[in-house]
């Protein structure tokens, strides 16, 4: 039973860490954005204050059952996916369920949050929400293709679908997958631009077009819960990318306190740098129209993904 206790403790620790890191990154991005825009900017912990304020709203209106469930659904989906991805490369403190899930399963699970959002937004009856959901799903169709191609390339190259094994391979050979299959990596990187929904791919909640899209009718606690879910999802995507392409973080053979802390440090550095790519891109670019965004993803990123698959098939 000690094992189970450790697991539960690890799971709670993982969730707290994912939430904190996701929120803090959001705050850092706000601060950096402000500096780029010649401003002083809000404090780094501003997102926590916003969340606290939203959660302490005294009235909260829900539009029907799905409107009530959508934020819960999102956070459940976020925590579930979080359990299935390796946090520190098989570190004993954060084992969670990462040994049981594989990439294909993860792909399915990551859509779950959006699905909850879609159902909830549909029930609010706001046309902006409906259009926002349609746009979100269209965009997902766009970026999922290069992303899946990149993952397929990795699966073919290393003959495994397990995230754990993919990380292990990088640890053993010392070569990051980003270099082992650069085409797949680039395809996935470009797809990540759409995944993080910064400009030019913020078409879902485009303020000048759709107010704030699917979340138009959500306020107070619901919006706060969605914000937390979003923060966890950001951390999930970043960690997954780091483990798939950047050799993960931490040493699977050493689970001592120091090694764990060092692993967390490396994870933070890698995820932050990765996070900066869509953010940098977003600072200086206006927004695409929906069909332009899809055309973008089906252009170069998809081509790179196909090359990545061919590379995996013929050169390894």
């Amino acid at each position, binding site marked *: 039973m000690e094992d189970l206790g450790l697991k539960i403790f690890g799971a709670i620790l993982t969730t707290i860490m994912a939430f904190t890191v996701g929120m803090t990154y959001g705050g850092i991005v*706000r601060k950096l954005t*402000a500096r780029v*825009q*010649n*401003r*002083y*900017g*809000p*404090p780094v912990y*501003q997102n926590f*204050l*916003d969340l*606290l*304020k939203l959660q*302490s*709203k*005294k*009235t*909260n*209106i829900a539009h029907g059952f799905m409107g009530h469930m959508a934020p819960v659904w999102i956070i459940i989906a976020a925590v579930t996916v979080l359990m299935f991805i390796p946090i520190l490369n098989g570190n004993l403190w954060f084992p969670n369920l990462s040994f049981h899930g594989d990439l294909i399963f993860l792909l399915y699970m990551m859509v779950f949050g959006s699905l909850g959002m879609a159902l909830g937004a549909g029930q609010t009856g706001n046309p902006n929400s409906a259009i926002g959901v349609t746009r979100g799903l269209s965009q997902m169709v766009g970026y999922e293709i290069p992303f899946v191609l990149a993952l397929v390339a990795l699966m073919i190259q290393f003959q495994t679908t397990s995230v754990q094994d993919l990380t292990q391979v990088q640890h053993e050979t010392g070569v990051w997958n980003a270099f082992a299959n650069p085409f797949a990596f680039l395809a996935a990187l470009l797809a990540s631009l759409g995944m993080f929904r910064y400009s030019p791919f913020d078409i879902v909640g485009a*303020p000048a077009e759709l*107010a*704030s899209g699917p*979340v*138009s*009718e*959500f*306020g*107070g606690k619901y*919006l706060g819960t969605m914000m937390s879910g979003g923060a966890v999802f950001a951390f999930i995507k970043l960690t997954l990318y780091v483990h798939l392409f950047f050799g993960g973080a931490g040493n699977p053979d050493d689970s001592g306190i120091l090694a764990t802390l060092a692993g967390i440090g490396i994870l933070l550095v890698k995820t932050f740098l990765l996070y900066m790519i869509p953010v940098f891109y977003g600072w200086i670019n206006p927004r695409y129209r929906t069909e332009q965004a899809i055309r973008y993803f089906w252009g170069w990123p998809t081509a790179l993904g196909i090359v990545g698959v061919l590379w995996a098939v013929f050169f390894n």
Partner: protein
Amino acid sequence: MENDKNSQKIVDYIGNFARKHSLFVLAYGTGCGAIEIPATMTSRYDAERFGIRGAATPRQADVLLITGYLSTKTLKRVIRVYEQMQEPKYVIGFGSCTVNGGMYYDSYNTINGLDQYIPVDVYINGCMPRPEAVISGFVKLQELIMAGKANNGEKYRENLEHYRSNQKKIIKNWKMPDYNW
């Protein structure tokens, strides 16, 4: 939730602290004062350092900023927007024309005195108020929030009949849903 002025509970204190530092302003330029809002939000005056940022829809907003005079046609929309906002919510009257009509005191289409129709927390006077004045108005609102004195939504709920009768005096064709939360 009781909000005793003298003895705030620790929960209230934390809540008020968060509310104070995170004010989502509804992006609704109801009048000409809206021209100074971009200046307030952007690089020279940068209101975001106080946690003030724009919100796109009334559901997400905390502060309704009435930027200037309200025509009767807009008043109807403002009431609708105000009622959609979630409590605790605050209203800032911006510019002289919200106080007493200002230079439009004799216009047949603008209201004089915003607080007859919706409760107002803070008035910022001037025509038009400079960004510094706007920020000082927000700081004043923050002080009120921290002292637990900004209870706009409660005031509206408790005196709903008073406000309704005033509103219906002006808006002739009343086709709006009831205030139900």
